[in-house]
């Protein structure tokens, strides 16, 4: 009671000045009014007696997951998909509302599955509305980058949490440029998919089964110390995966030529590990789902038309708004008019506190939007303002090994107006184009107040 205290001030600077005048340093909060219209809901959620413990539980559940790669399987086997079943990225969507790259990827997948003889016949098939199902990956414990199409014949990584046995799934990464996930469906795209199912998948399956589980959570921890943020840069992770699997690939009885092709393919694709980072993030975030009172975001996903989030305390409800076009750099002669709005489940990495949230650890890609290294450090620190905690396993050396910002808090987004920053690739607007660039994007601002309102409504109902 008699020792001079440290003082944190929030509000009138004059009162902070009065403390400084007494030779006590006031740590000042740069307070700004909350997002308009949210003050009442913020107070209701802040007063929710469940919230603090629910968020602590959600964070603990998230941090308690160790994601291990335990198998590689055809989606038909892993996910029970049958001919005509298609999983896609983002919140639910119909063919009618689907964007160019989503349609292009569906067309390619229909041709790949042999449902149509030629991809160009697929639009008529999908317009008919019969003979197929469209469902979000997220509704099946799965995630897919960009269009995120998973069809029965595609192979998927199987990740498992050792302690609970919970599983998540993700397709195998095709590389950059003209690829299905960016909406391309030409014959070379389909040929690559066929090779991935007939050669790459089985080679990886034998290797994973022989090598034993690969600790993806641990590889992510190492990647973050090696310049990967695990969304737009996965180079170190990809090479570490090869390090862990190549001996088993060679010994596993696969043809030497197939092993060489697989190693060259994986090694030549800096993004191969993205499709392991994503389901690892999904597995951890799924553990934080369905905790009444928790304001933690457990999914951010885009289908090329809508951007949606799901929140722990509001179950499976999606809060959606129009997907935005990324701000970034374009390949070749492409420009902003060629880019489709934001697409893909890969924002699961940001939801888990890496990707754009870990920009500080990936200075090699800060110039993606003409940024600087200080911008990258500032971005990670800014994301810390909307996060509930830090991840003690995933640390960033240049920030004195601070943990990555963990658990986006809907309330803090509304309080600060700071939106999550997502590093993303850009697909061409026209079906069949492929990738046109890469950059940074944020969610539509209105979905966070909408989620907050739903949380506040549940709190009010419980209090009655």
């Amino acid at each position, binding site marked *: 009671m008699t020792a001079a*205290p*440290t003082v*944190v001030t929030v509000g009138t600077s004059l009162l902070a000045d009065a*403390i400084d005048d007494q030779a006590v340093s006031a*740590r000042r909060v740069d307070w700004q009014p909350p997002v308009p219209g949210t003050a009442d809901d913020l107070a209701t959620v*802040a007063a929710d007696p469940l919230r603090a413990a629910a968020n602590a539980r959600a964070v603990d559940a998230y941090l308690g997951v160790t994601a291990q790669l335990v198998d590689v399987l055809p989606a038909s086997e892993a996910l029970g998909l049958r001919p005509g079943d298609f999983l896609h990225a983002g919140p639910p969507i119909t063919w009618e509302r689907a964007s160019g790259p989503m349609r292009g990827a569906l067309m390619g997948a229909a041709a790949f599955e042999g449902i149509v003889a030629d991809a160009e016949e697929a639009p008529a098939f999908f317009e008919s509305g019969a003979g197929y199902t469209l469902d979000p990956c997220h509704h099946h414990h799965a995630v897919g980058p960009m269009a995120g199409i998973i069809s029965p014949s595609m192979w998927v990584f199987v990740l498992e949490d050792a302690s609970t046995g919970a599983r998540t799934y993700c397709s195998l990464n095709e590389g950059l440029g003209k690829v299905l996930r960016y909406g391309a469906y030409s014959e070379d795209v389909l040929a690559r998919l066929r090779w991935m199912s007939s050669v790459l998948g089985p080679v990886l399956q034998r290797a994973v089964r022989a090598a034993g589980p690969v600790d993806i959570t641990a590889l992510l921890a190492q990647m973050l110390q090696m310049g990967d943020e695990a969304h737009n840069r996965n180079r170190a992770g990809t090479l570490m995966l090869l390090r862990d699997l190549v001996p088993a690939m060679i010994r596993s009885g696969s043809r030497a030529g197939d092993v060489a092709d697989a190693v060259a393919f994986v090694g030549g694709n800096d993004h191969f590990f993205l499709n392991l980072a994503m389901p690892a993030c999904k597995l951890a975030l799924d553990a934080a789902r369905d905790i009444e009172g928790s304001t933690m975001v457990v999914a951010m996903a885009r289908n090329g038309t809508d951007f949606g989030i799901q929140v722990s305390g509001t179950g499976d409800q999606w809060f959606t708004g129009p997907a935005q076009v990324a701000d970034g*750099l*374009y*390949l070749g002669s492409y420009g902003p008019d060629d880019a489709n709005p934001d697409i893909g489940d890969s924002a699961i990495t940001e939801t888990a506190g890496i990707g754009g949230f870990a920009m500080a650890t990936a200075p090699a890609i800060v110039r993606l939007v003409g940024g600087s290294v200080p911008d990258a450090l500032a971005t990670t620190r800014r994301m810390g*303002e909307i996060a509930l905690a830090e991840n003690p396993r995933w640390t960033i050396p240049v920030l004195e090994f601070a943990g990555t910002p963990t658990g986006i808090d809907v309330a803090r987004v509304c309080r600060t107006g700071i939106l999550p920053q997502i590093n993303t690739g850009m697909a061409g607007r026209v079906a069949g184009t492929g990738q046109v660039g890469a950059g940074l994007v944020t969610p539509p601002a209105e979905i966070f107040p909408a989620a907050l309102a739903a949380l506040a409504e549940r709190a009010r109902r419980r209090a009655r």
Partner: protein
Amino acid sequence: MTDHVSLRSGAYADSVTLLQVSKQVAATPGVREAQVAMATPLNLETLAVMGFDVPADASPNDMVVALRLESASLDDAMAAVDAALAAASAPRASGDTSVAPPRTTASALRDAPAGTIVMVSVPGPSAFVEAMDAVEAGHDVMVFSDNVPLEQEVALKEAAAARDVLVMGPDCGTAVVGGVGLGFANVVRPGPIGIVAASGTGTQQVLALLDQVGVGVSAALGVGGRDLSAAVGGRSTRTALARLDADPQTTHVVLVSKPPAAEIADGITAYAASLSVPVELALLSPDTDLTGRTEALLASLDLPAAPWRRWGEPEEAGGPGALRGLFVGGTLCDEAMLIASATLGEIRSNIPLAGGDALDAAAVLAGDLGDAHAMIDFGDDALTVGRAHPMIDPSLRLAALARTAADPATAVVLLDVVLGHGAEPDPAAALAPAIADARAVAVAEHGRTLPVVVTLVGTAADPQDLERQAAALVSAGAYVFSSNAEATRHAVALTAVPAPVPTAGELR
């Protein structure tokens, strides 16, 4: 239109840098398209799609420069490539521009040492959210903000009680913790007296009187004006009393408040009696004022209560007419009404005594009070929505002073001036001329002297310089008291005295 493709063996930049370089070169006038990239198969394919002739001998370790020129010369375009590559590899200005201040209280409290205190003064509708951050992180919090809904105060204090955290406020103007004044706080010396107060300016009155006789304080813990209401139930008062009971520096405690709600009065009184430290109750009532309770406290310490200081000379002037009090301190206003009403009967106010009808903000600002006695608290919530407290922004009260002087019903004006950290740096600078003007107007328009009585609450070490403030007020014609109770009694006495005709000297 001419195409140009060349290879630079051994040159390397990462793909993101090269994307940026390509973008810059493409923006050069006369350049239609530009692609500078490492010659990987993918990039060569991209070039082929763009229609460039790709050299057959390119390897992934070469940098390929492909330009499609409209009007620019090849030399100019290549110069642009070189400039963009050089710029991309140039070091950036150093200095860490990446550290921004925290945006929420929760963020500011990450890694904060135990014992850190939070002071919240954001607008009322947002105060609860920031204060909850402090409570959940286990830190004591002072909520200076007013206009905080009652149910939020209750929720905040329930959460705090569960974590043994002290919530001072809402609408807590003053606290002293560890020798540091928070909000509006006077500079006091350390000492044995602990104060628990539901009233900011009440605390300041006690602090100032104690300082005058050389007695210091260990802490002054505000609890907010509604803490002793039935709804809030004295939660913060109990926590604050317990803190002081446990503090070895504190030998005596004073509890400053309006009388508690009847439902909780017994409980609080019993709780205070159960503590090992003696608790002096200073609960304002018609029979109890802060000066008297401070004197009783000093008596229990075997210390003499000095005759409280006054500055200036009394005037043999005043009524008959109305007493008009214009206050910045809510408790000082309350105390003055309790004292004055015993003699004068009903006092109109925006914070009336029990049973009175409140003047609304519009009536206060219009200033049409008939011939009634009136006392206005300019620090009340209704008069601070969207504006600073009158101890910071005196403009409303200064305007009211001018109106009051022009009102023929006004016989005596009673004012308060509160010094200390957080308050105006020189309140007399604006108030003294306004007092002089008011007195001149009374003479000019109504032909009589207008006595102005001032309570000056401050300590010798306050940054505004107590003596200088007193001198400025006296030279404007005010009679200045350090005790609000004494000032009020003097003003009441003047109200009943017939006004003499002013002398020539006073017409100046």
